[in-house]
């Protein structure tokens, strides 16, 4: 049974990887500015989004210093609208601690390393994503939480019975060269966040519509609309955000938040880690040497 299950996984992974392998054959250019190339296509003619993508417009994918910020959009050209909250939601936000600029990021669940939620891999994170696609489905792998999103594009609808999930339940369909993804059944702890506005809480009726396109080989464009009849007075739409194709690159695990020294430092009820970075729950070489001498007699 286990073997059959594993075989299924490998087969599925193999099907997903085939178009990805084709996409990766494009040479990784080291030019300062990438020249536009035509969009790779799937056998059925739809755009192929497969590849590793870095958020923002990146001139040199081989060198992105940590002290530089690469925006996916220019707020002067396309300013980001703010969410329109219902009065009760506005009051809840005020009670939680509202600043003059309507910012509500005091207790972002991700501060405790909870997953950031389905939208955040595109609009709330500086981490790389990898898209793996064939004519039937699209899979998103992400460094941000070391999780995944699975989006069938074979015409199926949402299942009849759904449980809330951090990334919800997604189905996709094509409108021309744009993949439109419908996402429901979201865990209400998955705040909606984006870099200029670190987040707000959704209700159990929140509904995302996401639009993904690849106008040319090196550029992915993503836009999301959030409808939430219990929290918002009208849908909120993100401005289109750009990603840069990181041809030939790998994404890495983020082994989510095993190193939360800051959080422990900021939370008096958590056990602090000492100045040497030691946490008593885990193996430490110096401690081993010290205790070995004391106890291994």
């Amino acid at each position, binding site marked *: 049974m286990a073997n059959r299950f594993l075989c299924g996984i490998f087969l599925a992974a193999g099907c997903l990887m085939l178009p990805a392998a084709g996409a990766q054959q494009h040479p990784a250019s080291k030019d300062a500015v990438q020249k536009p190339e035509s969009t790779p296509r799937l056998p059925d003619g739809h755009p192929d989004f497969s590849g590793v993508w*870095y958020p923002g417009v990146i001139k040199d994918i081989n*060198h*992105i*210093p*940590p*002290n*530089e*910020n690469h*925006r996916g959009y220019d707020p002067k050209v396309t300013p980001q609208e703010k969410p329109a909250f219902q009065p009760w939601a506005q009051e809840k936000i005020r009670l*939680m*601690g509202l*600043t003059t*600029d309507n*910012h509500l*990021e*005091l*207790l*972002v669940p*991700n*501060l405790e*390393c909870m997953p950031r939620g389905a939208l955040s891999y595109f609009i709330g*994170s*500086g*981490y*790389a994503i990898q898209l793996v696609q064939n004519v039937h489905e699209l899979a998103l792998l992400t*460094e941000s939480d070391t999780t995944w999103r699975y989006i069938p594009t074979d015409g199926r609808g949402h299942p009849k019975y759904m449980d809330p999930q951090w990334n919800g339940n997604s189905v996709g369909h094509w409108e021309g060269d744009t993949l439109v993804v419908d996402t429901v059944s979201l865990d209400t702890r998955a705040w909606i966040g984006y*870099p*200029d506005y*670190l987040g707000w809480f959704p209700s159990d009726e929140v509904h995302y519509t996401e639009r993904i396109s690849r106008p040319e080989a090196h550029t992915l464009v993503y836009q999301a609309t959030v409808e939430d009849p219990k929290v918002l007075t009208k849908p909120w739409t993100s401005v289109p955000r750009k990603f840069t194709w990181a041809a030939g690159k790998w994404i*890495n695990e*983020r*082994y*989510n*938040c*095993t*190193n*939360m*020294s*800051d*959080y422990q*430092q*900021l939370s008096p009820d958590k056990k602090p880690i000492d*100045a*040497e*970075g030691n946490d008593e729950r885990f193996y430490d070489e110096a401690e081993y040497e010290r205790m070995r001498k004391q106890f291994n007699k």
Partner: protein
Amino acid sequence: MRKLGGFLLLAFSVLLCAMPAMSHHSFAAEFDGHKLITYTGILTKLDWGNPHGFFYLDVKDESGNVTKWAFEIASPNILRRSDEATRTYFLANMGKPISTTACPAKNGIPRAATQYVKFADGRIAPMGPKTYMGDLDSEQILRNLK
């Protein structure tokens, strides 16, 4: 809870003005973005983890007393995009003196948020988001160090 909320809120309102988007959480709650201090010490440990990496130096003061300092850097995934060999540089410098420009913790504990690092062979590289808000040139300070 409300008290904590207010605390974090204040922290974030400062954070939003100054921080690149990829920071995981509150820099301003923990570190002083208006202070930049240069530390030199022996590299004793690298903690290559998310959401932030840390390295540790034995820093000797003028009277010869050694203090163990922890320095927060960006996440490994972010640092790899700058230079895939970043971890290797740290490992090659274990037991050697390195220098760093960093914003110290507000509460006085031996902990700081690194801006740039200068390794024993003279290599200088940014290792954290740009969180220092003052006028000093973090990179140039390390270049001028002998």
